[in-house]
């Protein structure tokens, strides 16, 4: 579960990590009073300068016009009006962009240097890892690709956490000394403890700004929580912002279907994530374009198959559907019956190519043949099925 910047900062602050001052707002009026509150908190005078930052679950905001500068409450309100409710398209959002449902009115700070610190899991080594670099900022991935040695990786023992020696290595890497090194070590400890306590999968501070006055301050924060561990953190569940999720994907996930919309014309209904990806691959190899990735899961029932069809049909671009089921525990005859019920109930008229394989496949295919529905084409082999559906979607 992704968090907004302002949520991440509030949680980190509560965990004892020093954070840049800021006040979130969801209306222009709130933005104006947020400006006043922030100005007061910072002891700022007339013309106090702040950032109005669009809150969305993606990076690349600055370059996309999502960060505006305000020097008065009226201007903060004006910027909030311009940003709120708008869909912001950044390099990470895809062409549809994401809606801005909140803004963060943030203290502007003068940075001497921009650093990078993150805590995540090194999947292969099965260990938490703290990443640190002197070259923070928007081009960190470029740095990682071209100068891997510029990024320090500190693998942690889960039983020991971030040891003082490891924290010192991190601040050495960041070129910090004296009281700044101590600040950096405390911050790294705070980030790690937060990561572990909240079952995060990512805590990323980029940039971690080294200010003119010598303070170290996280200027942006990204936190992603482990969905599988949310049962341990019922207090965090309320932070979910469903507006940042695609409506069809959200609808699908609520009934245990994994769906991601793509831009093609062939709707896909598959059981299992790997097979669903492979189905999209073979459609592409045959010259077609999938309209979606859809995994009904291992234990899908008639109701779920019907709902999966509803989701596929909600995409107006779909011209033909490929159903690819490898029946293991899910019996093919049973899937066939579900298919017939669903397509009848929904009065599906577009062509559906069905490839069934696995348990009780003969019975499943017999059911489909007997139905004598013109728009239902059965294929035994995946390649043949893919070629056929590509042809039908032309």
């Amino acid at each position, binding site marked *: 579960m992704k968090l907004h910047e302002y949520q991440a900062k509030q949680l980190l602050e509560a965990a004892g990590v020093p954070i840049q001052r800021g006040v979130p707002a969801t209306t222009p009026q709130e933005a104006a009073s947020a400006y006043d509150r922030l100005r007061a908190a910072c002891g700022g005078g007339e013309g106090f300068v702040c950032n109005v930052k669009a809150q969305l679950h993606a990076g690349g905001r600055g370059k996309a016009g999502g960060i505006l500068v305000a020097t008065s409450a009226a201007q903060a309100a004006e910027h909030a009006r311009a940003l709120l409710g708008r869909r912001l398209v950044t390099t990470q959002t895809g062409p549809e962009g994401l809606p801005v449902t909140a803004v963060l009115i943030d203290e502007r700070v003068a940075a001497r240097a921009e650093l990078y610190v993150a805590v995540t899991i090194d999947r292969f080594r099965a260990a938490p890892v703290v990443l640190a670099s002197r070259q923070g900022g928007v081009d960190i991935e470029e740095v990682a690709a071209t100068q891997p040695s510029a990024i320090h990786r500190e693998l942690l023992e889960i039983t020991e956490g971030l040891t003082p020696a490891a924290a010192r290595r991190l601040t050495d890497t960041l070129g910090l000394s004296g009281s700044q090194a101590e600040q950096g070590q405390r911050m790294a400890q705070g980030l790690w403890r937060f990561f572990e306590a909240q079952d995060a999968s990512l805590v990323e501070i*980029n940039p971690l700004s080294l200010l003119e006055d010598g303070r170290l301050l996280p200027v942006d924060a990204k936190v992603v929580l482990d969905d599988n561990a949310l049962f341990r953190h019922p207090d965090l569940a309320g932070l979910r912002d469903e507006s940042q999720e695609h409506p069809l994907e959200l609808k699908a996930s609520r009934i245990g279907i994994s769906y991601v919309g793509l831009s093609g014309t062939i709707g896909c209904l598959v059981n299992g994530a*790997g097979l669903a990806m492979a189905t*999209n691959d073979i459609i592409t190899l045959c010259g077609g374009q999938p309209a979606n990735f859809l995994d009904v899961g291992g234990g899908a029932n008639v109701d779920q198959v019907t709902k999966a069809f509803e989701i596929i049909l909600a995409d107006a671009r779909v011209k033909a559907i490929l159903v690819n089921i490898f*029946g293991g525990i899910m019996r093919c005859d049973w899937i066939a019956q579900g298919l017939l019920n669903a397509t009848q109930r929904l009065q599906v008229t577009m062509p559906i190519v069905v490839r069934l394989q696995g348990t009780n496949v003969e019975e499943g295919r017999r059911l489909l043949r007997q139905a004598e529905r013109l728009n239902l084409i059965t294929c035994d082999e995946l*390649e043949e099925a893919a070629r056929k559906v590509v042809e039908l979607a032309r």
Partner: protein
Amino acid sequence: MSILVGKDTRVLVQGITGQAGAFHTEKMLEYGTAVVGGVTPGKAGQQVHRVPVFNAVRDAVKATGATATVIFVPARFAYDAMVEALDAGLRLVVTITEGIPTLDMVRIRRRLQGSASRLIGPNCPGLITPGVCKVGIMPGYIHAPGRVAVLSRSGTLTYDAVYQLTQAGLGQSTCIGIGGDPVLGSSFTDLLPLLETDPQTDAIVLIGEIGGTEEEEAAALIKKAGIRKPVFAFVAGRLAPKEKRMGHAGAIIAGGKGTAAEKMATLKAAGVTVIESPAAIGRTVAAALGTRAGRG
């Protein structure tokens, strides 16, 4: 026998009284697996498909001489179930459960360091030595005894690949679904050396997916001449929706984007035969080996 499970494997089912546990206990028994006991706290004395149920793994091991366990308990209890299995000294732990918190798996992997136990999964279909022993949820009948090993990150795609091999006249020595989670008990690189030295295995099929670095690590191991048997690979997801990621740490760790194209190129460079189409797995392996090589 092939690797990890054979005719002498004595299997416990943790979570045997649950719906999935009970159902698959029956299927494993039908396949011929020696399911010798089940564990559900508080249900000792019951029977499921005539298999005795115990309160604790230690009790079950003592009473039945079990050597392996397969775990079906819900995600929030899976960490405890795995710890119990490891503490009881079981040499093979297969976790079918999906949705386990990643940090729980990190803690389990720490416990496995220096331990004689091996963990397969979680979020996996399990493993099978065709015709001999099935410890998992895969449909048994699609398999045939033979000499091709299959290692996979997927579930139903593995079934499809295995079915293609069987149809092409190639039986399998061992098929292992390593699981689809970020942190796994065993990776391709842990299992490849076992297959390399397994006299029952002539060739290896890897089924990979986008994301993570399993395939890249496997390629590195193969390239270092650790693996001399022929290896074939399919990587799913060349057109998979790009995960809407947040932040940069994932890409920094992976050292790349973890795309199917990158993985296929890395495997190819290591001498692996990369199969482009998911429908061509059986016929590609058969053409390279000749069907006779694969018969058991």
